[in-house]
């Protein structure tokens, strides 16, 4: 029986667990990462890709707070693209196809070299609970580790069950055992548990594929970079992806196999994601569509496996073979691993505090897939937040958590806490009402100063960040100090640049606001340059000018709502004292325990009328104590 004492213990070495452990250790507290298998640290269970719309935003935020994911993607990315590059900056997002092995290697290297962090390979079987608080972990072989805070990030492993056709067996993901002892133990605690499912496509041997029948999809040039500290020179060699499609024959095979689908025969109870449907789901729900795209993605530089993105399935293996071989280019394809679906336990995220600590079990933090999310990025972002707050708890500091107006991470946590989820939750930009403020390009400006205060940012990054921030300010100042006079340019040139002659002299900053003017051409005009060299600085200056009106409006909106949104509801608030609340709404609020009226208003089923009642009540109560005025 060991009785080692740590500040923070993280259970699980996936995307949530590794970011949690790194964040806690970076903040200087002694941290233990306990995982089933050191070889699978940073393993990508499904698609070997990082980023995408909404997800790329999360990766940049993790990076801005000193996290690992962007850096690992830079070291492992073999095909980079900026999605939505023709739409505006707020919705542009970076996506990288990653070499699985390189990605794992990058994560493992970071973990092994992180001061204050130790790794131990053992499954956790039990939590040590004393006086209602979680104070440690017991492993499979009976070792006990004690800690001030424990972060649980065990992914799809709790009570995991894998389905291929009507066959099913226990597993945490293909090739890994499930966590049954821990699952059983957690079900005994006062936590609300439910089941979700997700799936993955069969993998294909690239030597058996005819790429000449597919469309090529090259990466972007110049190759994008994920991390603020990164450089395209860190990237491994780049490769191609391909695109092919399903056809009527494919769909016939799927329909013929439906009577042996675990989903459609009711064997699987867990709910799957609507936006990540299996191919059988797509055929059933969109029967009139006769073809679906498939992105054919390499699993790695040294690997012959391909990931056919778009045909996730849990149909029986013989059906999978027919389905795959009906597809153009896959006529002779060899399946190396069958596709499967997995069902697992997750915990109702409405039981969490904004810090990701359990409301019912102080000392226990939850992050990643077990909170009902899906995706590496969603997991990693939560992991970082849980790691930060576990470390702060260990140091007796108040918790920290970003608001919806500050970060996608804030949107994620707030959505989970107030709405809960009945399907795996994935990030989209449309979830963020302050989308124009929450951009990939300003993640560092939004979060790095806070992260620095939290103790997550080293001096090197901080110095570089400050240089950038100062350069932006300086250039903005220059553009608002300099004027362009109608006489400075020929009338023809004015018309060409501005769509008509200038009527009066104008500040450069004002001119940059016009949709038809860009930074490069503006600073190229006589007397208007030189512009800044640093492309990131130029981009910031330009975006700020283009979005200026909108950004002001969103800030106004935020300020206007802040007073109501932030009107805080005391921890021990008794909803029974609010006159007029329906029993249903009262129970929902009692259960969710929103920290603010804003959160309360986002709890499903809470009507605007109920919110006004709550506000009125708080106002009446606070009139004596002044709590509302204090908040404003």
């Amino acid at each position, binding site marked *: 029986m060991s009785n080692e004492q740590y500040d923070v213990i993280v259970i699980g070495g996936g995307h949530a667990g590794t970011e949690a452990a790194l964040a806690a250790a970076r903040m200087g507290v002694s941290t233990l990462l306990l995982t089933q298998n050191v070889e699978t640290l940073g393993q990508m269970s499904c*698609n070997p890709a990082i980023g995408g*719309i*909404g997800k790329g935003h999360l990766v940049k935020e993790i990076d801005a707070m000193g996290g690992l994911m962007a850096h690992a993607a830079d070291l492992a990315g073999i095909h980079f693209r900026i*999605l*939505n590059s023709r*739409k*505006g900056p*707020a*919705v542009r997002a970076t996506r990288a196809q990653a070499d699985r092995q390189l990605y794992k290697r990058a994560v493992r290297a970071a973990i092994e070299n992180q001061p204050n962090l130790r790794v131990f390979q053992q499954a956790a079987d039990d939590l040590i609970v004393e006086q209602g608080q979680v104070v440690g972990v017991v492993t499979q072989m009976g070792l006990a580790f004690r800690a001030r805070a424990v972060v649980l990030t065990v992914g799809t492993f709790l009570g995991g069950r894998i389905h291929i056709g009507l066959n099913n067996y226990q597993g945490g993901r293909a090739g890994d055992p499930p966590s049954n002892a821990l699952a059983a133990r957690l079900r005994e605690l006062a936590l609300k548990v439910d089941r979700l499912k997700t799936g993955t496509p069969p993998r294909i041997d690239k030597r058996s594929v005819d790429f000449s029948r597919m469309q090529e999809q090259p990466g972007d040039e110049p190759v994008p970079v994920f991390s603020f500290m990164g450089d395209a020179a860190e990237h491994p060699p780049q490769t191609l992806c391909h695109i092919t499609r399903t056809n009527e024959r494919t769909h016939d095979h799927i329909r013929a196999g439906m009577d042996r689908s675990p989903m459609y025969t009711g064997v699987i109870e867990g709910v799957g*994601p*609507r*936006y*990540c*449907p299996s191919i059988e789901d*797509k055929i059933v*729900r*969109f029967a009139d*569509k006769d073809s*679906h*795209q498939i*992105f054919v993605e390499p699993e790695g530089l040294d690997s012959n496996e391909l990931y056919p*993105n*778009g045909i*996730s399935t849990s149909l029986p293996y013989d059906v999978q073979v027919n389905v795959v071989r009906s597809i153009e280019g896959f006529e002779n394809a060899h399946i190396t691993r069958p596709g499967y679906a997995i069902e697992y336990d997750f915990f109702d995220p409405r039981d969490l505090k904004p810090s990701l600590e359990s409301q019912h079990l102080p000392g226990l933090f939850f992050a990643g897939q077990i909170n009902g999310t899906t995706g590496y990025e969603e997991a990693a972002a939560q992991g970082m937040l849980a790691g930060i707050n576990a470390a702060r708890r260990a140091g007796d500091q108040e918790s920290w958590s970003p608001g919806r107006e500050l970060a996608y991470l804030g949107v994620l946590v707030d*959505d989970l806490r107030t*709405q809960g989820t009945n399907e795996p939750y994935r990030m*989209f*930009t*449309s*979830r*963020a*009402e302050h*989308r*124009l403020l929450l951009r990939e390009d300003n993640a560092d400006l939004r979060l790095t100063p806070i992260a620095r205060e939290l103790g997550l940012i080293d001096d090197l990054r901080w110095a570089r960040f400050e240089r950038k921030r100062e350069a932006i300010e300086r250039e903005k100042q220059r553009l608002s100090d300099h004027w362009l006079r109608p006489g400075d340019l020929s009338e023809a040139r004015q018309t060409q640049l501005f769509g008509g002659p200038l009527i009066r002299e104008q500040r450069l900053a004002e001119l940059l606001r016009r*949709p038809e003017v860009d930074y490069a051409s503006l600073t190229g005009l006589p007397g208007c340059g030189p512009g800044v060299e640093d492309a990131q600085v130029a981009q910031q200056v330009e975006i700020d000018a283009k979005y200026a009106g*909108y950004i002001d*409006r969103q800030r106004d909106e935020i300020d206007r709502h802040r007073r109501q949104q932030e009107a805080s509801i005391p921890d021990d608030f008794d909803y029974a004292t609010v*006159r*007029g609340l*329906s*029993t249903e709404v009262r129970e929902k609020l009692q259960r969710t325990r929103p920290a603010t009226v804003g959160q309360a*208003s*986002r709890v499903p089923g809470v*009507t*605007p*009328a*109920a919110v006004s*009642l709550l506000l009125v009540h708080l106002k009446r109560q606070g009139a004596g104590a002044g709590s509302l005025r204090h908040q404003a």
Partner: protein
Amino acid sequence: MNDADTIAAVATPPGRGGVGIVRISGPKAVEAARRIVGVVPPARTAIYRRFHDRAGHEIDDGIALYFPSPNSFTGEDVLELQGHGGPVVLDMLMAALGEIGIRPARPGEFSERAFLNDKLDLAQAEAVADLIDSASEAAARAALNSLHGEFSHRVTAMVDALIELRMYVEAAIDFPEEEVDFLADSGIATRLHDIEQKLQQTLASARQGTLLRDGMNLVIAGRPNAGKSSLLNALAGTDAAIVTDVPGTTRDVLRERIEIDGLPIHVIDTAGIRDSDDVVEQEGIRRTWREVERADRLLLVMDAREPMHVEDQQLLARIPPRLPVTLLHNKIDLLERDIPDDVDAERAELWISARTGARLDRLREHLKNAVGYQPTGQGTFSARRRHLDALFRAERHLLDARERLEKSRAGELVAEELRLAQNALAEITGAFSSDDLLGRIFSSFCIGK
């Protein structure tokens, strides 16, 4: 609301004969039925009974109706007693209810409960309040239209169309890999145009509803001595305004509330507009302009014997383009030629005499028509200023969305304007979350890998 107390109120206006209705809402409605009627009537069925007080004395006889929760107006148990009315009888019924702990309702409390129990949306709840204090017959009808959800219905239809549009725009943004780049096709522009039209129609109806309920602001302006103050006095039937033959008599703004067949109108007399060195008069003229900017209609008073003066033309050039104007040729009693015909076009011209009152009836008729006053009140909504404001804001965001779509093809900014437009409308109909929107996207398009 199961712990709420039970309330009662007389539901017929005081002093009206015929029937007197007492309405009771809350958990004690059942007890009230047992005590007063002697039995709890079957749900939603009228029974005829004698009503008794606690001591067993008969108070009245009439019909009792029982609506169990939640299928009632307030969502609570509701009992309705319809007797012969008369203040004394009704007082006795209320007293009998008081004996079993049922208290008189505060004004609007029934609607409030209905709203809190999600029986009414905000627009409907406000319509109930309007109905209670509506000034004219027509306004009452307009309020009824809203109550029946006519207004809510129109706004909801618009919101639905807007959600549909947003669904396409957001799908194009969040799923660029998915062959759903709707921003590039013309369907978006068409849909946007349809919503704009719906919004404008609703705005027109809603605006009239507001004028009917709140009364329009009718500003009288014109040169000194044209007879503005005389007109105010004639319309109001008082001598509220000082009338002299000294130009520049009126120095300050003067208001009178009048009614034409129940249609409320705020008549506003102003200082005559001319160049003046007098500081007081200058200030008066400044105030005139302020009133003109807020007016719902302008009456420009001129002397019928004279052609239009430059000052009048300048005034017409300066007023807000939206503001409708009626030209009034005053003092026809002094006119030495035949009185010309009235012109009833976009810019109406009427011939009157403020002093003798000649042809003022035509002016009144004209004003009623101008606000779309129809005794039936059909097709207009009682929209509060708040609603109007929300509709105006939504309109502006839709216009901006169109501009963003056409000029800069900036998808995220189109999306932002549409979001703001929907937020504005949601102030009338209630919230809609981004998750709901995603739900619509997923059920409409085959998306995801």
